């Protein structure tokens, strides 16, 4: 089945809606895309001390990540080597050892099989050293972001991320030491839609004016300057959509919405103004005027293919999502902040987050509504088969955030992986 029509000369780019709903495509996707790409596990700051651990599901696999006795970061497949039960069943905590409750096999925090009840019944050839918790085939991290890959032959994480690191680095420049931490409190929710719709939605700015009309009104009513779009623009400020290669892409937008680092808006309150000035001053001194402007006055929604998004707008959020069914995904979102942040700056960051993002924010619920509406609509995929993704395709030069070059880049990479043997 042809999933993408990509004829740039004819200005055609269309996606077959079956890609959003067909169960066979969904099954193939796990094998061809998710089992071959670097997938987000978590952030180093979520486990700090020896024995600290977190568990979560990545691509259907229960995962345990933790600090071992030497405080090194470890990632394991959270399945007992004996019968397969999930060994650690708590979402987070600190433990010296992890015991599978089913038959009592106990692993230490380095993953080694520490003890088993009644070992003498096993044959002499039974070697406990062979039955430690198994790590995923590949694990690596980039500046605190931990990834795994189920494909032993995958390229290195650094090569995989390619040009996307430029934008990760830009986010991390908010911190004087380049270190950001995940703040307590996870937003975990399902969307009854295909995961690729959230990819599109996360960096498609074309929907902003209509889907988020009430959010824009909220900004205006709160004294934020929201300009009328200039000619050729849909949005109040100039912004680009960028294909970063490898399916990664980002928006790169001039800010108008306020940024905790560091563009004050009235919503933050007068008391926060000097603090934001101070933050900006530090960044300008450290990075110079030009880079400081990029850090403080531009927003980006960065997609790390296939399903990790760094939102750097009203706040910074890590948004990671997992397909559960063709018409269902599970989303996890966290707030990320500089480790050095003052209590006041942290408060602004968290408060600003909630103006837009999350299941109770003034914008994300409307995104979810849009995606679920699309999912229902594409029920007619056999009759209405193709969706055009052609905004900007006939244009020379820069592609705007409301064009769709970055969406085409995602779909092209997805299609390429789906067609590999």
């Amino acid at each position, binding site marked *: 089945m042809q999933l993408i029509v990509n004829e740039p000369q004819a200005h055609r780019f269309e996606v077959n809606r079956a890609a959003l709903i067909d169960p066979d495509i969904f099954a193939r996707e796990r094998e061809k895309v998710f089992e071959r790409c670097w997938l987000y596990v978590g952030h180093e700051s979520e486990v700090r001390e020896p024995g600290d651990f977190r568990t979560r599901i990545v691509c259907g696999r229960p995962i345990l990540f933790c600090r071992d006795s030497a405080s090194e970061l470890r990632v394991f497949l959270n399945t007992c080597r004996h019968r397969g039960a999930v060994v650690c069943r708590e*979402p987070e905590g600190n433990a010296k050892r992890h015991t599978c409750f089913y038959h009592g096999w106990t692993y230490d925090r380095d993953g080694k099989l520490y003890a088993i009840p009644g070992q003498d019944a096993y044959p002499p050839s039974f070697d406990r050293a062979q039955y430690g918790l198994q790590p995923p085939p590949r694990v690596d991290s980039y500046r605190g972001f931990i990834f795994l890959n189920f494909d032993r032959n995958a390229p290195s994480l650094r090569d995989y991320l390619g040009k996307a690191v430029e934008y990760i680095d830009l986010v991390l420049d908010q911190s004087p030491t380049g270190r950001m931490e995940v703040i*307590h*409190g996870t937003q975990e929710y399902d969307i009854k839609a295909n995961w690729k719709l959230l990819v599109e939605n996360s960096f498609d700015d074309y929907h902003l004016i209509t889907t988020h009309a009430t959010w824009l009104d909220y900004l205006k009513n709160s004294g934020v300057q929201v300009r009328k779009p200039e000619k050729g623009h849909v949005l109040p400020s100039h912004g680009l959509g960028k294909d970063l290669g490898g399916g990664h892409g980002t928006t790169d937008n001039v800010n108008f919405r306020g940024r905790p680092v560091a563009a004050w808006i009235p919503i933050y309150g007068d008391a926060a103004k000097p603090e934001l000035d101070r933050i900006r001053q530090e960044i300008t001194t450290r990075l110079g005027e030009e880079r400081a402007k990029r850090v403080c006055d531009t927003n980006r929604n960065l997609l790390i293919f296939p399903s990790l998004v760094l939102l750097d707008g009203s706040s910074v959020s890590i948004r990671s999502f997992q397909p559960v069914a063709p018409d269902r995904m599970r989303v996890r979102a966290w707030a990320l902040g500089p480790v050095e942040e003052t209590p006041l700056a942290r408060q602004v960051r968290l408060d600003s987050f*909630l103006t837009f993002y999350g299941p109770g924010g003034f914008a994300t*619920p409307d995104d979810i509504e849009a995606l679920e509406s699309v999912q229902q609509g594409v029920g007619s995929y056999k009759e209405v088969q193709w969706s055009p993704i052609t905004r900007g395709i006939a244009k020379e030069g820069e592609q705007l955030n409301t064009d769709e070059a970055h969406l085409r880049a995602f779909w092209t990479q997805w299609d390429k992986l789906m067609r590999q043997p």
Partner: protein
Amino acid sequence: MGQTDAAAVEAFLYHEAALLDSWKLDEWLALLTEDATYRVPSNDRPESDPKTALFMIADDIRRIRARVTRLKDPHAHAEYPRSRTRRFISNLRIVGESPLRVEANFIVYRFRGNDDKREYVGHYRYTLVPRDGTFRIQSREAILDAMELASLGTVSFIL
């Protein structure tokens, strides 16, 4: 000041629930003090402070009013058409007298379109201010029991 009459508090919370279930949001706003807060913590951090932890909702009175403005607008797509909700409040306890702190269990059923019903189960924490023979709400926090929001999806209505 004597002991607060639990039945009066209960009647007040039933009144609030009726206003919210019938989307009489301006009348609901009138139940709040000028410094009221409304909070829903993240499911994995039910005992937290929004200054240091990520919540789902942490509104001050200005944000509450903005939320009502938004919810009354047909462009609040997540609630247009609106959810139908039905709240059941029970196990009310007065846990402090000065200030007056009240806790109660809730089940809120939410129906929307042809969706399956969604059941929001948890407990409320209120700080109430006695005024004019009734009460005003100074703070209300809705703490969900679900380990994750999961299939509940959003908290786009007032929980």
